[in-house]
């Protein structure tokens, strides 16, 4: 009989997994406050990862999207030499050694890879109509600007073709400028004063809404020569070049650089960037930002992990006599360790799932509030968040579980 019992024990000495899970679940639900606090802490950690990465990645997608809408196959020429070769924000304020002129821009049209281009001069000025006055940004450019930038007109027409160095006293105004200056009145054909010059309104830009780069809603567009005269400057802010196609971008870049170099006495004093380079830079920058906020959010997961450990340690202390009993009833150390580990894993899993749902709800709320902002958490962040939650929960559950498994049954039973 003794032998039979030994054989029997050999066959069935491990607690069955469903029993283990049910036991751990009952132990967890036996103390609802403790359990819900723990699950909440874990949930907040995971939700933070999901929401913050959704914000970071949303910002990245938003910027990338906006840059793509800037125009296609774009090569941008800006005055001044950037040492790094790539795009950096310092380009915007570098001093100009030699002006980038309208003649330079016109010369670029000779390049075979260039489809069309638009020079751009930027400044601020006052605009007035019928006693109403406001400060606006004035862009001086040429007829191809709308085509290069993929912009649409709401009414009228854009600046006419003609001599770039002269230009008619015509202006195209942004949707917001129109609203503020003219209200319900018809704007087309009216004369407005910009700075000390008078312009006739020939067109109104379609509203673009909030956008990166330049928002045309609050812009007044005039012929480039007139803008330069108004700002008393010969230099251009940018030349926007559209290459013949995607594969022509590099050729266009090389040709543009070469032409400007020749025109500037062999000195390469402009920076030519492609949209791809700008995009890549922003993509990298905002990707790093997302990673950084994910890292910060992960700290809250580590904190939640430590909380798991703490709570499980308290639980071991509270359930000392139960552990003693289980040992008396024949539970091995491994069984008890598994029971506590299972409990920690279940709590972490519940917290992770709850946090995932909360995070997705939060991201959905952000998308609801800001429809243009694509706040979707990236897949890697969701996987990493859930994984980290489970891992920390189990990792920090090991110590309490081992402590429980090592309890001396006599002392554990004596404790009430």
């Amino acid at each position: 009989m003794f032998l039979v019992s030994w054989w029997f024990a050999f066959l069935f000495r491990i607690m069955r997994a469903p029993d283990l899970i049910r036991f751990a679940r009952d132990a967890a639900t036996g103390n609802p406050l403790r359990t819900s606090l723990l699950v909440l802490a874990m949930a907040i950690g995971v939700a933070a990862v999901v929401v913050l990465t959704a914000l970071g990645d949303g910002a990245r997608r938003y910027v990338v999207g906006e840059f793509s809408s800037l125009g296609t196959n774009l090569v941008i020429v800006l005055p001044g030499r950037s040492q790094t070769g790539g795009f950096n924000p310092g380009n915007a304020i570098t001093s100009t050694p030699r002006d980038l002129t309208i003649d330079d821009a016109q010369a670029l049209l000779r390049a075979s890879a260039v489809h069309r281009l638009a020079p751009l001069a930027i400044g601020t000025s006052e605009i007035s109509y019928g006693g109403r006055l406001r400060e606006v940004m004035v862009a001086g450019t040429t007829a191809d600007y709308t085509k290069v930038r993929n912009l649409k007109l709401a009414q009228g027409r854009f600046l006419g073709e003609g001599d770039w160095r002269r230009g008619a006293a015509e202006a195209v105004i942004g949707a917001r400028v129109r609203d503020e200056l003219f209200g319900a009145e018809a704007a087309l054909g009216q004369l407005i004063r910009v700075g000390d010059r008078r312009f006739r309104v020939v067109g109104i830009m379609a509203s673009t809404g909030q956008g990166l780069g330049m928002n045309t809603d609050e812009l007044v567009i005039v012929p480039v020569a007139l803008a330069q005269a108004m700002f008393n400057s010969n230099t251009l802010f940018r030349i926007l070049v559209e290459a013949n196609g995607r594969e022509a971008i590099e050729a266009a870049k090389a040709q543009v650089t070469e032409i400007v170099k020749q025109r500037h006495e062999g000195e390469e004093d402009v920076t030519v960037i492609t949209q791809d380079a700008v995009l890549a830079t922003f993509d990298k920058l905002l990707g790093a930002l997302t990673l950084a906020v994910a890292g910060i959010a992960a700290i809250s997961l580590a904190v939640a992990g430590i909380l798991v450990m703490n709570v499980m340690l308290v639980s071991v202390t509270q359930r000392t006599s139960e552990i003693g009993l289980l040992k008396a009833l024949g539970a091995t150390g491994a069984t008890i360790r598994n029971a506590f580990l299972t409990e920690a894993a279940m709590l972490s899993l519940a917290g992770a799932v709850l946090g995932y749902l909360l995070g997705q709800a939060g991201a959905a709320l952000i998308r609801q509030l800001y429809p243009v902002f694509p706040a979707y958490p990236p897949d890697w962040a969701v996987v990493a968040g859930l994984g980290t939650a489970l891992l920390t929960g189990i990792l920090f559950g090991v110590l309490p579980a081992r402590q429980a498994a090592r309890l001396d049954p006599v002392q554990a039973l004596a404790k009430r």
Partner: protein
Amino acid sequence: MSAALIGLSGIERIFQLGDSEVHALRHLELRIDAGEYVAVMGPSGSGKSTLLNLLGLLDHPNTGTYRLEGRDVTTLSLDEQARVRSERIGFVFQSFHLVPRLTAAENIALPMTLAGIDPAQRAVRVTQALKDYGLSDRASHRPNELSGGQRQRVAIARATIMQPAMILADEPTGNLDRATGEDVMRLLEELNRHGVTLIVVTHDAVLGARARRQLLMEDGELRHDSARQASNA
């Protein structure tokens, strides 16, 4: 003569309390045969609880050997000892030691759950046990919904569910009134009549007198063994 279930020889158990040593058990020699009904008595601190823990493999002697069913169990690994507890030993405690969040049925099933016995077999045995101990209508009650007597009956059902060779009862009636305690003792004695070795620790002389054999402990030593006296006489 029946086979020796328990054989203790040269058992010493010393506790370290600060820098003083306490001899909880001294040169203990004891043999208990299968099917015996033994009461271990003595004042508190006499070592009777230590003896019970030792017999239940919850505690280990500093020296000496403990043979259970002919096998030296002092040298077994912790896991092997756990298995012996699971298969051969049933515990009944003064304070019942039921798991409060589990129902009566689940408490009774606990040793089988821990041993990994399949649920269908568990259900059959628990149903039978509930019937045997008059708890059928209490199966889904939690311990706090049971009377003291019912709790101890659940505990006894749990102790016997694995069909152990012996039951170790530590003051099984200590938390019960006389009438309920009487019921519980009758249950335990009924088990003993069916062949289970019953060892009861108590300091209640009336309770001890019901056993066929009395052991009296004092200062960690076995002062009196009614069986030995009888054989000597």
